[in-house]
């Protein structure tokens, strides 16, 4: 078992014919992901990378029984793409796009409320269940199938962390990038709940960063609802307040947004904190050995 995606995932790619969409669809196919459909308005009826292309998500789903969608849609059109996926009732939507206006995401969240679709992202690297399904832009080869769940607000930092795990022989059940935006579709807590319920995940690595209070909320869940060990690193200890560090969400606006506050909350909740990002692999190894 894994969470979110597995060998039964039938992936739909929104924006499949764009350059990023093309590039990563090809990587996903190479990895072995079952990509059943693409959507690019106006290109319905054609084929791209051997995948049938449709004009709309609902048509793609009704004809291919796709059960997950990944979006490579430019920021100005991405919210419309997510709303289309939600409207079509796809169970999982993963939005890679960075730079979606916040007020567009307000609408997306309002529309999401009461629906059963899970949204991951935007501004995220996607989701991978190693050796089963890659629905994202992460490098497939660095992953190894196993029993550690990874959840992160970052993209490339996660690759580094996963590389450390893999090089130590520690496989991953699923790696989830929840993204660096201020209004992510899924939070740490949402994903931790799934890992807690997944029988094949033994431990979880959580990679947080400055800004917002999502790590503090995760800490509450870890303390009250989590039986599995959590290894955590929070990026941005050296970031100055009031400056946006790349990610829209990575900005210290109040004291709660500081790395030190987040680390304190996670530590108090019982997570094992890594003093620097190069320690995540070794720390996870120790935690697993002590179980």
């Amino acid at each position, binding site marked *: 078992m894994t969470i979110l995606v597995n060998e039964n995932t039938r992936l739909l790619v929104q924006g499949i014919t764009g350059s990023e969409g093309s590039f990563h669809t090809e990587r996903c196919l190479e990895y072995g992901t079952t990509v059943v459909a693409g959507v690019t308005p106006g290109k319905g009826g054609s084929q791209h990378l051997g995948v049938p292309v449709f004009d709309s998500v609902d048509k793609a789903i009704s004809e291919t029984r796709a059960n997950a969608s990944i979006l490579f849609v430019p920021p100005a059109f991405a919210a419309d793409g997510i709303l289309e996926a939600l409207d079509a009732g796809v169970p999982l939507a993963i939005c890679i796009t960075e730079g979606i*206006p916040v007020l567009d995401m307000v609408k997306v969240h309002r529309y999401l409320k009461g629906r059963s679709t899970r949204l991951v992202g935007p501004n995220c*690297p996607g989701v991978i269940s190693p050796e089963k399904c890659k629905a994202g832009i*992460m*490098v497939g080869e660095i992953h190894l199938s196993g029993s550690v769940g990874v959840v992160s607000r970052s993209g*490339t*930092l996660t690759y580094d962390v996963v590389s450390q795990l893999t090089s130590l022989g520690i496989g991953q059940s699923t790696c989830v990038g929840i993204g660096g935006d201020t209004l992510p579709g899924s939070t740490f807590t949402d994903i931790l709940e799934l890992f807690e319920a997944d029988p094949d995940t033994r431990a979880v690595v959580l990679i947080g960063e400055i800004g917002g209070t999502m790590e503090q909320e995760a800490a509450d869940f870890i303390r009250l609802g989590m039986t599995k060990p959590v290894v955590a690193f929070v990026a941005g200890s*050296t970031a100055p307040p009031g400056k946006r560090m*790349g990610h829209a969400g990575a900005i210290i606006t109040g004291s709660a947004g500081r790395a030190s506050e987040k680390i304190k909350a996670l530590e108090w909740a019982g997570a094992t904190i890594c003093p620097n*990002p*190069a320690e995540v692999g070794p720390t996870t190894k120790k935690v697993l050995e002590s179980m």
Partner: protein
Amino acid sequence: MKVHEYQAKALLAEHGIPIPQGRAASTPDEARRIAADIDGPVVVKAQVYAGGRGKAGGIRLTESAADAEKAASDLIGSRLVTPQTGSDGAPVSKVLVEEASDVTRELYLSILVDSASHLPLMIASEAGGVEIEEVAQSSPERIFRCTIDPAIGFQPFQGRRLAYGMGLTGGQVREATQLMKSLYRLFLDKDCSLAEINPLGVTTGGDLLAIDAKMNFDDSALYRHKDIQELQDKEQEDPLEVQARDWGISSYVKMEGDIGCMVNGAGLAMAVNDLIQYCGGRAANFLDIGTLNNPDRVVNSFKMFLADPSVRAVLVNIFGGMARVDVIAQGIVDAFRQMDIPFPVVVRLAGTNLDEGQRILTHSGIRFIEATDFYDGAQKAVQAAKGVTG
């Protein structure tokens, strides 16, 4: 993106929110003429992006046009140091000359997007004129909040609740409700990330008046607001950060160390900076080159390092995903070919198209220090900056 008070107030006025009579002046003479038009006591307010201007002497109450000219003359061209600016202060190139408003009460009103509810949140308090965070700490019961559901928009009942919360009565309640509705409209129309009126004054006549205003805008939405983009005042920003943006590097933050960093991904960039400090060094900047596969962006990053006199060594740390390592490698080679790189460069590459990237670097003949992982990279960069050859 931030704007000046006078620009924020112009937007408020466009949306029907009452502001004091006045205009911005770029010269003392202009300030005198505006003050003369107003014909009464005026306030001369330094226009800088930072708050805390009052205590820093950036806001002057004057009784005559001549005094206003004098105040403007003091302020324009100076640098104003406030608790929010850093020791260098912020340059003052304009002042806002406004009628001095007689207010009996100072209220607080703002809208931002609340990340817990994912909805616009309107905040009101009867305790205006100070930082709302201080009020939130000391007397949270004096702060009233309403989230605004886009399914129904801002509703009169919410306006009444907040208005009563601010201690308004009678016709003021309807006036405040209308003002809040206008502020919400402005917030939506212009994709604000913050729209704040603090203080919102109650005049001796009982009317509401936006005495000071602050507006921030969602950078991701600027593409649909050319009018807002044009308000940007680059003088108020760090010159290196302005330079970075002009060169297409939107995620650059100047920091206080000596190791220039070029990383792909914001989280990794923060982690690399953290790691450099962990290894005993300090980063000169935060720089996320993003995911655009364009070697010019890499070349421009090196131009940034050359433009920053504090850089003594460079650490390039790329883990290719959406970004492709070969493209980055080509960018590094291009940079070395186009300019003279006077500092040691540590390069750590991993991920998508790694082999091709390494081949490009190795075959180019450029001089760089190779790192095997990011801890290795950070250590070598710290050593290099200290003059220890890697």
